[in-house]
């Protein structure tokens, strides 16, 4: 399907430019923090960032940086540097890229600003614990670990008590590191903004339920950066409000994200950052739209545990019960819900060698999906930011074969 330039332009998001500007400004602010007398904290992507915002500390996300490194095709080189430092090539490529980047200030923005402190929340993996230990040794700065017990089959009282107490410890850690008191009134406001941001982000993702969809998972991977990095600020709320408006306009004008959307697919796991365009084009060439994914949903998936009037207390629970910190049967339930909600014809699973907590168990989830929902599934294997691991021709063949099955089933 050949698109004219006019059509292509219609499909583009005007908000994309704005978001680039916001992110650009965010990184400028972060990189000039020291000269502005501000402190910088490195924090894991699923970490409780709101207290940092209350304390006026600039949060920086090595994982978001990792995604940028991947998208700029600089991952392989930086991972290689980490390997030369002795890190195994089988480790998470976010971690390798970041560890390889720190001593040389490499990557698309010449490295992240030096942290004054490190905040590691293990609700996504055990990798971040080890990775932040590496950086704590390298930068010789204090490390706070927010330990979120894994919820295999539920969230017990012991865990609830433990994470709440850690919220207090976290606050006193920050008070100590910043030399000032924690402002609880301000925390209410930040909490409100965080929740508002998460709700809007969910709405953005929900729009994909429309047929045809105005947005693809690839767009979501792009727009995700704000809810990750600036959660808890007005900027996020304003931006997603505008994005939603733009999406509504598109729906009114009948502009779909994929020109001839015939097949709708669900993506599982992190994106393959250095092949976003290729994958997007590849699926679009089959008239397939990846309408949703399990990854970007993770930043609004535990809203139900947040009590707006008691944010600080309830956020401890919400951060513990996020998508990656639950058993695979719970994860499968979320996948079933998404299959129904977005009305998808097939599931594309990224078996991500970088991320064991996300990937081990996928075979079982795949079987559950096939049994319960009867839709075809396929697997793509890679390391999400290490482009050396991607075998394009093999994956192209697989996608073609998979799409054949989907087409036959639908005809």
């Amino acid at each position, binding site marked *: 399907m050949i698109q004219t330039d006019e059509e292509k332009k219609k499909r583009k998001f005007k908000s994309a430019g704005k978001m680039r500007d916001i992110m650009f400004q965010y990184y400028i602010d972060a990189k000039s923090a020291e000269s502005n007398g501000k402190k910088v904290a490195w924090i894991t992507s699923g970490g409780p960032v709101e207290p940092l915002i209350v304390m006026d500390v600039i949060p920086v996300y090595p994982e978001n940086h990792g995604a940028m490194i991947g998208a700029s095709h600089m991952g392989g080189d930086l991972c290689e540097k980490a390997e030369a430092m002795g890190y195994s090539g*089988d480790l998470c490529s976010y971690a390798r890229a970041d560890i390889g980047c720190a001593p040389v200030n490499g990557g698309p923005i010449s490295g992240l600003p030096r942290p004054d402190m490190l905040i590691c929340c293990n609700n996504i993996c*055990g990798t971040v614990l*080890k990775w932040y*230990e590496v950086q*704590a*040794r390298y930068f010789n700065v204090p490390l706070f670990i927010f*330990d979120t017990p894994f919820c295999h089959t539920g969230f017990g009282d012991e865990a609830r008590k*433990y994470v709440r107490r850690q919220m207090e410890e976290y606050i006193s850690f920050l008070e100590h590191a910043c030399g000032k008191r924690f402002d609880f009134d301000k925390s209410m406001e930040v909490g409100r903004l965080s929740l508002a941001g998460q709700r809007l982000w969910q709405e953005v993702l929900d729009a994909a339920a429309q047929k045809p969809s105005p947005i693809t998972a690839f767009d979501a991977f792009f727009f995700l950066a704000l809810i990750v990095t600036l959660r808890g600020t007005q900027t996020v709320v304003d931006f997603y409000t505008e994005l939603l408006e733009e999406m509504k306009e598109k729906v009114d004008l009948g502009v779909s994200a994929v020109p001839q959307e015939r097949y709708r697919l669900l993506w599982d796991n992190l994106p393959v950052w250095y092949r976003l365009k290729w994958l997007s084009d590849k699926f679009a060439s089959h008239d397939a739209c990846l309408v949703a994914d399990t990854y970007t949903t993770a930043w609004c998936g535990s809203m139900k545990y947040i009590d707006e009037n008691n944010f600080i207390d309830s956020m401890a629970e919400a951060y513990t019960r996020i998508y990656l910190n639950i058993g695979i049967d719970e994860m499968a339930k979320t996948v079933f819900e998404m299959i129904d909600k977005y009305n998808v014809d097939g599931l594309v699973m990224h078996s991500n060698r970088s991320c064991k907590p996300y990937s081990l168990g996928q075979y*079982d989830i795949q079987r559950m999906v096939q049994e319960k929902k009867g839709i075809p599934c396929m697997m793509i294997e890679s390391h999400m930011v290490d482009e050396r691991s991607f075998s394009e021709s093999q994956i192209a063949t697989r996608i073609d074969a998979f799409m054949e099955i989907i087409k036959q089933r639908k005809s």
Partner: protein
Amino acid sequence: MDILHEFHEAAYDPYGYAHALKDQGKKIVGYFCSYTPEEIIYAAGLHPMRLFGSKTDIHMAERHLQSYSCSLVRGAMADVLAGRLSFLDGTVFPHTCDSIQRLSDIWRLNTNLGFFADVVLPVKLNTQSARDYMVDVLNRFVHDIEKYFALKISDERLLGAIETYNTIRSNLLSIYELKAKNPSSIKGEDLYAIVRASMVMDRDELCVRLPEVLKGLHQKASAEKAVGKRLMLVGNICDHPDIYSIIEKSGGDVVWDDLCTGTRYFDGMIEVKDMQDPISAIAERYFTRQVCPAKHSSPTARGEHVVKQARLHDVDGVVFLQLKFCDPHSFDYPYIKEFLDGAGIPNMILESEDQLPPEGQLLTRFETFVHML
């Protein structure tokens, strides 16, 4: 020593041993990882048994686990699918690495071996809240066992279990210390068999046998001067007993280790303070024993520990034994190496999967390393 024969049998055919035990009416609970609160399982009158996964038909795990999970995880899954663990009355998964975490889910959903528990321990072991949480989690575990097996675990039984484990651990430590002092007193493969069998054999039996072994070794310990270079193994589990004899052939001698199948298993005694409840005492040991890389006590704890132990035991060189796809250990390797380099302790790394490289090749690598020392 004849008595060692028993240890070798249990170490090399743990499932055979388990079946025999089962025939005597014992209930067996399998577990992963050295952070399992074995004392509680034992106090319930159950037999705790560490699962390592055999290396047969490991491909059977492919239906559930990607090729990039470690061979320990895949081996265990293959065993359970092949029915080799039919003697189990239950399994316990303490929270450790990401791979074990997911293995637990897959296990829970695909096997049916009676009792099942996740013991979600804290990951950081350096705060009061983590201590309190640890106690809560252990109490919950007590409760889960009591409920499932319909029994009561009294404080008395727990105190008895603590005593049993202290006996086992202190004897293992003494045997290790003897080896370190007088390397020719016991062969590496025997030492390996002893510590590994200690995770398999009946614990009461161990309390009798281990002191006997120790006594025998003391009697045998001659003034023979050790000839081999003194080596220390550092890594996850050693699943390759041949390593010890190959190292000896190459002119080295393993005198100490930092392994799950070694000192990390028995490090740290449990001290029950006045009026202290036994569960808190058990919990406390996890905060004082040497830390495993899947847990956190400080960013440099393991590096310091390894260097300290290497010095204490007069080690000439360190061999890192790394299981491929093991994240926690792979993350620690570069810095521990740096610490060792800084301390002037030569080291090498050997990465393996379910199979070791051919013996000839290994011998050459060890010889090259040992000659350098």
